């Protein structure tokens, strides 16, 4: 490659990175648009933030009836476990629950903090739904009670037609009863079967034995409202809470991690990358400059991918995942520089040393990436809570890092090698036979 061509390519890459860096933070009005005003809101602005980085909704739940005079000790932990499982079941990763014991009445208030999204207000009613599931016949006689009668509940979609006769996707709650429970229902059929949780009626229909498909029935009165079907499934699955709570007040609460926590962490990350690169430069000189370009490229690619992932919410743990992935990239670039110099020291030319180091290092980096990808997947599918957000950004980072460290950084080093005049000094090469 000629020096001129290498310089031109390097300039284009650097210019592209600079433009993307500006686009990451800049907000401006797009000029030249005739109808209306269009604003560019930065790459960071396109990321949706989770409850710990943005204002969240806090609900204080108060007991409907004063139970302080009751002899029984209130098992608040079991109530909280049900609430927690419902919150997780509705797809919330970032939440906080706290109980507040009134020092005079000994009653427990519960405060739940959730991300502020469109369905939060209706979700909270499902989360605090009171009462056990009850199956009754036409005369109101109880056939079954408690969620022990249910083996499985799931939400399934089916094709339906709306009022305009358009094909739409509708949702149903598929309830599978246990064998014993089904026998008890069968004994009273045919009759009108009513299913309710607390005061909420979920199902009421005249049923015969044939209407059951292997002990399952379909509750399909949710139309296209998937969230409503999911809320009903959740209530049936988790059982009831023994006390009735009322929402005292919904409040908008400051971010759990404090104001501007996201921006502070990103600025810290930028500072840390700079420190690492300076330290890198002390030992590896020109490799540090190519690494800076590679790290910036990594950060920008990962940010753009995160923007493209639908419904992804960035939490503080996500930012930590991003930071750890950046450390992984830096560590990989260190190793590659070290390997290249070691190969060069063994008598190879710089080009041969680079080729050999990246061949060996590439395989090594695949090994590390595979293990880290396994870790990200295991955490994503097994764990719950904020740690899942960490797994998403770190997992995406692992894949991007593999490309940046094993392929992109080699191109950049090559471009620098062809662009600079004093190659030995630039790359700290001490042998005389360097090309």
């Amino acid at each position, binding site marked *: 490659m000629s020096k001129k061509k290498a310089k031109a390519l390097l300039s284009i890459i650097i210019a592209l990175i600079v433009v993307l860096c500006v686009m990451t933070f800049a907000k401006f009005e797009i000029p030249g648009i005739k109808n209306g005003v269009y604003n560019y809101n930065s790459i960071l602005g396109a990321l949706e933030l989770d409850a710990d980085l943005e204002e969240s909704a806090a609900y204080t739940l108060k007991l409907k009836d004063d139970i302080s005079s009751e002899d029984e000790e209130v098992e608040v932990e079991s109530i909280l476990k049900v609430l927690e499982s419902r919150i997780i079941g509705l797809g919330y990763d970032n939440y906080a629950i706290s109980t507040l014991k009134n020092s005079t009445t000994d009653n427990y208030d519960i405060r739940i903090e959730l991300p502020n999204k469109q369905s939060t207000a209706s979700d909270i009613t499902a989360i605090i739904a009171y009462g056990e599931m009850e199956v009754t016949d036409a005369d109101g006689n109880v056939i079954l009670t408690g969620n022990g009668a249910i083996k499985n509940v799931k939400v399934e979609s089916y094709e339906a037609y709306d009022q305009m006769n358009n094909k739409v996707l509708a949702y149903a709650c598929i309830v599978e009863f246990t064998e014993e429970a089904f026998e008890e229902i069968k004994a009273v059929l045919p009759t009108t079967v009513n299913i309710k949780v607390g005061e909420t009626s979920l199902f009421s229909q005249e049923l015969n034995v044939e209407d059951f498909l292997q002990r399952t029935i379909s509750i399909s009165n949710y139309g296209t409202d998937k969230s409503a079907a999911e809320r009903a499934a959740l209530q049936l699955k988790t059982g009831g809470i023994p006390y009735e709570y009322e929402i005292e007040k919904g409040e908008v609460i400051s971010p759990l991690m404090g104001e501007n926590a996201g921006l502070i962490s990103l600025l810290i990350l930028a500072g840390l990358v700079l420190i690492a690169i300076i330290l890198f430069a002390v030992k590896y000189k020109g490799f540090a400059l190519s690494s800076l370009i590679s790290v910036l490229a990594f950060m920008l690619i990962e940010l753009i991918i995160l923007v493209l992932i639908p419904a992804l919410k960035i939490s503080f743990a996500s930012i930590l995942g991003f930071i750890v992935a950046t450390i*992984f990239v830096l560590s990989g670039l260190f190793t590659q520089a070290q390997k290249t110099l070691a190969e060069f020291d063994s008598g190879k030319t710089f080009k041969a040393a680079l080729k050999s180091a990246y061949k060996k290092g590439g395989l090594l980096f695949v090994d*590390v990436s595979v293990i880290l990808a*396994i870790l990200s997947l295991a955490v994503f599918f097994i764990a719950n809570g904020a740690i899942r957000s960490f797994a998403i950004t770190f997992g995406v980072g692992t894949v991007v890092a593999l490309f940046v460290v094993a392929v992109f950084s080699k191109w950049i080093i090559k471009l620098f090698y062809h662009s600079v005049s004093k190659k030995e000094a630039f790359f700290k090469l001490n042998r005389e036979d360097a090309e």
Partner: protein
Amino acid sequence: MKKLNFIKISKIILSLLLVIVVAGAVLAGVLGFNKGVELSNGYELTVKVDVNFGDNKEKIETETEKVLKENGVKYDLKKIADEGSIIIYQFKEEVTEENTKAFEDLAVKVEDAVNVILVSTTVDATTAVSEREGFFGTSTIWWAILAVGVTVVLAFIYLLIRYNIFYSLVACILAVFEVILLTSLVGLVRIPLAPIFSVVALTAVILSFINTIVLLNGAKEKLRLNKTKSPEEVANELLNGSLPKNGVIAIVLVVASIVLMIIGGTFTSLAFELLALAVVDFMVNQFAFAPIFLPFERKRNKDNLLRAKKKELKDKE
């Protein structure tokens, strides 16, 4: 550059690290972990006004915090709700009758003080016993441990295919050791445990795998190419090679924790946890590798020699 002899001191340092593990486990067993305000019981003081006062938020905060200071009470966490019409102060304090009475008195004092500066609105300061211990985030930690367990098993299988059983064991032992050492150190020096600790612990596993696989790969290559070098020499060369990289990672983590300490607030626990991670990661990567790797490498060599001898005998027969 002069090479350091890591092999010579690594056994002593590993012994010290094991002492930290035992001491941390004993202390955590006896006293429990020093849980942060998000994970422990305490009190909550809520200051509410009936109108949204926006600009007056700072006045309320100043007045409330003045009362807290006068009474020698320091809050651990502050939350602002409804643009400042509700301010919640959380305190990590042992729940006793005496403390409950003291916080009730404190609420009265705060209410009186804030009423003086906001005469036209109704100010309501209340206190409650806040119970967080035992449920918040507990399931999250257990699921995270299970996920790490599954990862270690799968990583073991992958490394077994790519390398050999001994290298596979070394990588998994070091990853588990690093996370145990981190938890023990946090327990020993009483670092406040925040819910984010599960993420820090996961980072320890990640950093351990990154470093160990690079070292094992290097060992495999060097031992194959240079048969005259002993495993000790190779391990020492590799550890000298990884020193700048591990040093930079440690420096970066220390700087990050210092910055977070300066910012304070909700970042304080994370800052101390990151500092512990910086120390643990550097110590495990530089000093625990050799004492765990060398016995396995010797055993691998012995097995290889035995296998070669058996093959030779078989060929002769």
